[in-house]
């Protein structure tokens, strides 16, 4: 039995699709206790009873379409024209843009490619050091995961059963704290002051023609209403989060294809297929792990883990510390979707036994996994940035260190101040 379980795990490290690895482990485990293999599909067909699941493919489609369009350029132009005069100007703007872009396009990596590529030359031109700029963009590549309507928030809701409306609210203040601390660091690093005395046209990305604030506002006029539509619709009670996904998908489709014409109509099917391939990759892992983790829960593995842990860890605070270290490790190895799907079902019973709120736990999870993205040696953002900016990974390790430090401070605050996550939920969450 041992070898049958170790072999798939080794293959996982050698690049075997994760769903195959999990399925192999589930098949072996089921045989071990004489459960019929078809139970895997009884579990998987329960996915068709999850009302929230539909928001995943629809938000993925909207995100892929947005990433395909020129929204990144419009966003950069607009925020430079509006906020370029602030101290720490462009660096702070980069943080905000990355956060908004990631919240809407969900899967990280897109941000580094689409937005990072525009901002990197601009930052250098504004005389920020190369090291600072690289670190900033690499660590911001996954910033914004805590803001609605980010996909990982939704996926956590689907897996844990926490209400997505609550999760959307819970992420806002912790995300703001993260932005504020990183922004403070950027202001201290300075650099933005060179902008005064130069013409605005010089600082715009891609050398676009000089655009006044009004022209930039007008250019992005169709994309700006998107956040208020989503949030206003959900919290105004017009539609639930899964329906917000449908509205967003339709809105983005109409705006990018028919109004801006950024994505020509004949390219839309390819974009659709690409987003469904992304969704399919997540869904098989989700479906198969549902079977695998239910097996573990049936075998009372979390309970046993809890009673074993309790011998060493009695306080909730120590548990949070251990949990954070564990999740940082997981986050640097796995991408955020598989990490959530595999780890959340096992950790939830344990965390609840230690008295941690389900929504707060979600925010802790996402913060850790976000940081894991830029943690050496194998954080995904580091490799993406190394590829995009053509610098050795080791350079990026050094460049991201100060940002990593700040993010870890944020993690500590988020973990040990539950109110930060729960305040808005209690205020506006309703019943």
């Amino acid at each position, binding site marked *: 039995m041992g070898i049958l379980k170790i072999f798939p795990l080794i293959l996982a490290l050698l690049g075997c*699709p994760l769903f*195959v690895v999990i399925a192999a482990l589930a098949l072996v485990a089921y045989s071990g206790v004489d459960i019929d293999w078809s139970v895997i599909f009884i579990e998987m067909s329960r996915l*068709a009873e999850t009302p929230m699941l539909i928001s995943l493919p629809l938000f993925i489609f909207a995100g892929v379409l947005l990433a395909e369009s020129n929204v990144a350029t419009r966003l950069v132009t607009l925020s430079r024209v509006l906020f370029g005069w602030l101290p720490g100007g462009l660096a702070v703007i980069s943080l905000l843009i990355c956060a908004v872009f990631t919240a809407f396009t969900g899967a990280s990596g897109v941000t580094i490619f689409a937005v990072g590529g525009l901002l990197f030359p601009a930052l250098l031109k504004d005389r920020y050091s190369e090291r600072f700029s690289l670190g900033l963009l690499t660590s911001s590549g996954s910033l914004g995961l805590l803001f609605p309507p980010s996909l990982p928030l939704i996926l956590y809701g689907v897996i844990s059963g926490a209400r997505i409306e609550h999760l959307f609210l819970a992420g806002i203040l912790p995300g703001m704290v993260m932005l504020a601390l990183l922004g403070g660091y950027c202001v201290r690093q300075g650099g933005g002051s060179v902008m005064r005395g130069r013409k605005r046209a010089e600082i715009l990305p891609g050398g676009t023609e000089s655009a006044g604030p009004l022209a930039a506002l007008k250019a992005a006029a169709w994309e700006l209403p998107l956040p208020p539509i989503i949030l206003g619709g959900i919290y105004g009670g017009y539609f639930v989060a*899964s329906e917000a996904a449908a*509205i967003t998908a339709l809105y983005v489709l109409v705006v990018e294809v028919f109004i801006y014409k950024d994505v020509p109509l004949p390219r839309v099917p390819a974009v659709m297929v690409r987003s469904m391939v992304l969704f*399919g990759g997540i869904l098989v892992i989700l479906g198969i792990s549902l079977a695998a983790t239910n097996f573990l829960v049936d075998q009372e593995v979390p309970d046993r883990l809890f009673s074993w842990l309790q011998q060493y860890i009695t306080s909730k605070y120590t548990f949070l510390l251990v949990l954070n270290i564990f999740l940082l490790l997981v986050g640097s190895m796995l991408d955020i979707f598989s990490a959530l799907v595999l780890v959340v079902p096992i950790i939830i019973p344990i965390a609840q036994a230690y008295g941690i709120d389900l929504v707060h736990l979600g925010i802790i999870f996402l913060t850790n996994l976000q940081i894991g993205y830029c943690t050496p040696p194998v954080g995904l953002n580091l490799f993406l940035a190394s590829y995009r900016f053509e610098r050795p990974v080791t350079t990026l390790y050094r460049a991201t260190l100060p940002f990593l430090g700040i993010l870890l401070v944020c993690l500590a605050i988020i973990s040990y101040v539950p109110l930060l996550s729960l305040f808005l939920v209690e205020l506006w969450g309703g019943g």
Partner: protein
Amino acid sequence: MSWIGSIWRGIRTWAVRLEEFFLCLLLAVMILLSCTQIVMRVFFSSGLPWAEPLLRHMVLWAGLLGAAVATRQNKHIVIDIASHLLPGFLHPWLALIVNLFAATVTSLLAYAAVIFVVNEAAYSQGSAIPGIPFWTLGLIFPFCFTIMAYRFIVLAIATTRQALTGKEPA
């Protein structure tokens, strides 16, 4: 014999087109049907009773078909450590082992899915959507996992060729 090959390639091209067409159709219907539901509820306080369960099953269908396409494009989620750490000449051999293993596991899953559907057809009654028995919705499982198994075998053959000749597959 070349005409057999060209017919086979023709079938494959059309199968791929059909698959992608169906995927786009599913996504388009999901978007439009959801939006119709919202409009009907907000403005006319009504709705289509069958739309909700239909949408939930369509999500599953779209995801599994997407996974089948992901197999063809070799785009499943993996832990990508080996390709950074191991020397290049080992990669095709590793890919061969991985693809053979994946083909085996997905074949077993396809087999388990057939048993699942047979059981459902025999024992489960009723349906979530009028006119569509419950078990027919489950047909997507054996269908997609069979396709995935087939594609992992194709990938395994391609990687064998690559390992032996050292050339990138066409």
